[in-house]
């Protein structure tokens, strides 16, 4: 076993600490080119990552940047600086540690480039910016190690791809660079290692610690048949909070967190200090809650994914997950937030929001105990991120296409990139990549006589640097109390536009009344009422994972249902008696009349996104057959369609070729495609979000990316960005992969049950919000009716 140098050993001794085995193990591997450490929350991952750096700098002091630490959160980088500077000062080591992010001042940033610290803590975006400067070779000349924290979180988005491209660049600037990835528990560590580098990368797995203590919250009332939010369990949740020191109450969406917090506050007779934290709240609101949390002043925080990561918040001894976890891996990571002491079990309670979620929660608990994590394999490195990387590279100076291609392929994320695809990206960056090539001016990059590429206009660097990054802000508007300038938080532009004066909604746990939509903000006033009229905004919806869906299907078939509460077990038995239970290898379809309409319920278990897509495709086919579908509502498990005529033989609905045909025609027009295009166009640099200086003209000068999308579809349908958009939509919003998975698993085997009434499993769908009318000629008629009503109301008709 590797031993620590005396200075470090003494420091550990004075603290009465001893390093974890995996921390020493990492030290022993300090000279390896690449290592991935998997350790649970609270396992001292970060110290394990930094130990080799400290040892090297103690044993062989050097000037210049030695170690680069990258984390997904600015706050985490700042936190890390505090955690490192303490011990470094105590040991009196001549090591300089600084952090760098969008919040760092310009002067400071310049100084960091001129005279870099030994250890620089930063984010992927700030690193990309550093790499775009001409002096990058000098800044990174002595770099020895890169430590990437929360690699699992970065790998889940394009930020990870961008980071991997930057690391490939660093490797070119500084051959022999060593890298270490730190990750929470993931389902497939070797796959994460392959993403991290195309070179061999051993995986070190720390002792995962004891099994968590996880169960469903026993509630006085049974959960409702449908809906989310878990408001029925309020008293029981409060009781659990009372019995613990500090509780984190996780929700899947911001809207649900708001509603829950509002109700929790109404039921909180003892006035226990409880806060709320989510991404739509104004920054200072969030910071207030964070500070109160660190000070131990709060008994509970109602929160969303914003608290999934990183910051060590001390004494959390209970995690409550409200609503189905949807994904076992995320559940495990959330549970890890309780009890940062490594060797004690974390304690968690699940609160299903409805009957289906009772089954899902039980399936998830079993998966956690079986350590059976879920996750979809990563696709190839996205090409829009590559386009941006080519631009960033060009900002730093002329580059050789051949060498850049080799460098990009050396990153794990782009190891399988084809040369033709690389060339298409280069062509897009250089000329726009349009079929029509009329003007010389359509050149962003030009080739020099020596064959290398450079920016045509060096002033373009400013625009590129201002638009670095892959994080897509949805268009949001600030919410302000009338007569005040301080924002309360943010809402999506679409939500704001749907409000009429007098509507009430929740913001930061308060009911507010919508007054007006000003140019850049939403003005609200205080509302005394207790019940908000509109509550939905920013509903990020996760889909139940493939693995968890499979567990649910197996669970309902179990002979012994005692693992489930009686109310749910009885419901399953009733469904089995009246209809069929859905099976893994077959699609269950139920047909029954209700309320004058023919209803069709399809149990696909493909997750919410895919079930919505399936509904759109299936209703299209029904329309072609003259069945007159009128609308549908989809959940993670099933979709309910209503229409004029009953489906006699549902087999034709699941014909793979028919579905794909429908997809091709329907896809192009779809709003989801436009949303994907918008993000692709932003990242690839077609539509920059930020411009230097003031905009030349007023707001009417900017036009939406939808117009560009329509124009490209009409005049240049094979354009690179449309191709990327299609690929992304199929994987992301449209989730066609899950439909294909469903079709493969069921291979055309359909159980069709025709009954004269609603079945037990279909019943909750009638209460589900989010009913979607089937598009058709009806839409124009709808708009006309509303226009007529408005005119009549105004006495102008």
């Amino acid at each position: 076993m590797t031993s620590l140098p005396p200075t470090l050993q003494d420091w550990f001794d004075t603290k009465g600490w001893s390093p974890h085995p995996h921390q020493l193990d990492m030290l022993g591997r300090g000279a390896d080119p690449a290592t991935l450490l998997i350790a649970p929350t609270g396992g001292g991952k970060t110290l394990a990552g930094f130990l080799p750096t400290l040892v090297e700098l103690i044993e062989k002091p050097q000037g210049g940047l030695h170690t680069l630490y990258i984390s997904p959160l600015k706050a985490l980088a700042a936190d890390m600086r505090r955690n490192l500077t303490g011990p470094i000062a105590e040991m009196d080591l001549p090591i300089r540690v600084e952090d760098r992010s969008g919040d760092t001042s310009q002067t400071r940033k310049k100084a960091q480039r001129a005279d870099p610290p030994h250890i620089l803590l930063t984010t992927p975006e700030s690193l990309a910016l550093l790499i775009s400067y001409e002096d990058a070779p000098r800044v990174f000349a002595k770099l020895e190690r890169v430590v990437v924290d929360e690699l699992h979180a970065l790998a889940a988005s394009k930020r990870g791809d961008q980071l991997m491209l930057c690391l490939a660049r660093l490797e070119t600037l500084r051959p022999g660079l060593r890298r270490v990835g730190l990750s929470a528990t993931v389902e497939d560590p070797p796959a994460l290692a392959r993403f991290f580098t195309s070179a061999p990368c051993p995986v070190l797995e720390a002792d995962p610690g004891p099994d968590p203590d996880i169960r469903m919250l026993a509630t006085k009332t049974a959960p409702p048949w449908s809906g989310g939010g878990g408001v029925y369990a309020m008293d029981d949740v409060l009781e659990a909070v009372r019995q613990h020191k500090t509780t984190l109450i996780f929700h899947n969406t911001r809207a649900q967190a708001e509603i829950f917090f509002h109700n929790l506050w109404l039921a909180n007779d003892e006035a226990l200090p409880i806060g709320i934290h989510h991404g739509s709240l104004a920054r200072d609101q969030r910071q207030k809650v964070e500070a109160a949390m660190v000070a131990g002043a709060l008994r509970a925080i109602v929160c969303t994914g914003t608290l999934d990561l990183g910051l060590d918040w001390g004494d959390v001894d209970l995690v409550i997950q409200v609503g189905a976890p949807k994904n076992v891996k995320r559940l495990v990571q959330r549970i890890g937030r309780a009890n940062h002491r490594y060797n004690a079990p974390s304690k968690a309670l699940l609160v299903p929001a409805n009957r289906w979620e009772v089954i899902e929660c039980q399936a998830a608990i079993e998966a956690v105990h079986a350590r059976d994590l879920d996750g979809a394999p990563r696709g190839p490195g996205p090409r829009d991120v590559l386009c941006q990387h080519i631009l960033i590279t060009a900002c730093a100076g002329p580059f050789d296409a051949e060498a850049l291609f080799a460098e990009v392929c050396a990153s794990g994320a782009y190891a399988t990139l084809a040369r033709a695809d690389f060339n298409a990206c280069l062509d897009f960056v250089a000329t726009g990549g349009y079929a029509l090539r009329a003007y010389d001016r359509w050149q962003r990059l030009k080739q020099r006589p020596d064959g290398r590429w450079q920016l045509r206009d060096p002033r373009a660097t400013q625009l590129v640097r201002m638009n670095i990054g892959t994080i897509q802000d949805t268009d949001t508007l600030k919410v302000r109390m009338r007569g005040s300038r301080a924002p309360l938080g943010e809402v999506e532009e679409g939500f704001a536009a749907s409000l009429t004066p007098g509507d009430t909604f929740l913001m930061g746990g308060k009911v507010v009344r919508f007054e007006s939509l000003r140019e850049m903000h939403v003005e609200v006033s205080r509302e005394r009422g207790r019940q908000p009229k509109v509550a939905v905004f920013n509903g990020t919806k996760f889909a139940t994972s493939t693995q968890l869906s499979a567990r649910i299907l197996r669970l309902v078939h179990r002979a012994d249902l005692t693992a489930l509460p009686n109310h749910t077990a009885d419901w399953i038995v009733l469904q089995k008696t009246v209809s069929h239970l859905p099976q893994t290898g077959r699609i269950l379809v139920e047909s029954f009349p209700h309320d004058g309409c023919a209803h069709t319920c399809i149990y696909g278990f493909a997750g919410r996104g895919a079930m919505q897509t399936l509904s759109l495709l299936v209703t299209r086919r029904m329309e072609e057959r003259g069945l007159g579908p009128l609308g549908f509502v989809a959940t993670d498990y099933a979709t309910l369609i209503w229409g004029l005529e009953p489906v006699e033989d549902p087999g034709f609905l699941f014909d793979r070729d028919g579905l794909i045909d429908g997809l091709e025609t329907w896809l192009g027009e779809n709003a989801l495609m436009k949303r994907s295009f918008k993000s692709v166009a932003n990242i690839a640099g077609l539509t920059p979000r930020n411009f230097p200086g003031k905009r030349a003209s007023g707001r009417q000068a900017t036009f939406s990316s939808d117009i560009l999308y329509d124009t490209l579809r009409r005049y240049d349908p094979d354009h690179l960005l449309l191709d990327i958009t299609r690929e992304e939509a199929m994987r992301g919003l449209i989730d066609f992969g899950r439909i294909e998975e469903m079709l493969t698993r069921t291979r055309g085997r359909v159980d069709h049950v025709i009954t004269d009434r609603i079945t037990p499993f279909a019943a909750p769908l009638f209460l589900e919000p989010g009913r979607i009318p089937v598009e058709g000629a009806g839409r124009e008629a709808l708009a006309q009716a509303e226009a007529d009503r408005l005119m009549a109301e105004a006495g102008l008709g």
Partner: protein
Amino acid sequence: MNAHVFSFAGTDLHFLGTGALYWPARELLCVSDLHLGRSERFARRAGALLPPYETRDTLTRLEAAIEMTEPQIVVCLGDSFDDHAAQSGLDDVARLWLIRLMAGRRWVWIEGNHDPGPVDLGGTHMAELPEPPLTFRHIARVGAAGEISGHYHPKARVAGRTRPCLVHDSDRVILPAFGTYTGGLRTDDAAIRDLMRDEAIAVLTGPRPLTIPMPR
């Protein structure tokens, strides 16, 4: 015809769902803010390389409006070109196309803030066109009456969808932008709201023009 017909300054005007305005009494077709050559201007200024198809698309739609109404006079209400260089930078296809559309009719280029100079494509170039009882100019003037203008690119929302729209009251008509690469300004923006009377109407473009009280 797919049009919203309304009475203004004692005469009947037809607003086409495509965003063009037709005045039958004078056989006059008016379109505003074509912004031809916008992508070219962006490319020239080392901004983004937008798809270079908007001139083709705008002219296709303009040609359709001309074929439908067969006007004697066509009035382009300013900002026809995204800037002066965009006008001289028009490619031959677009140039010939415009000349073909101009043949056999009077063509008036009103000057806008983007394209203040004369146009070397033929037609008449004017600061504004008085055609009693109407006056055509690019930017609305406070206190004017019988005025047809553009410039603001008004847009409004109904049933969850935002579209370019025409707004009018008893004194003035403001046309939406006809060009493909043009954004819009909501009618409740002070710049538009302050110009229009309380009873102003908005007519949204689309397959069927939709009439609503102007959102303010």
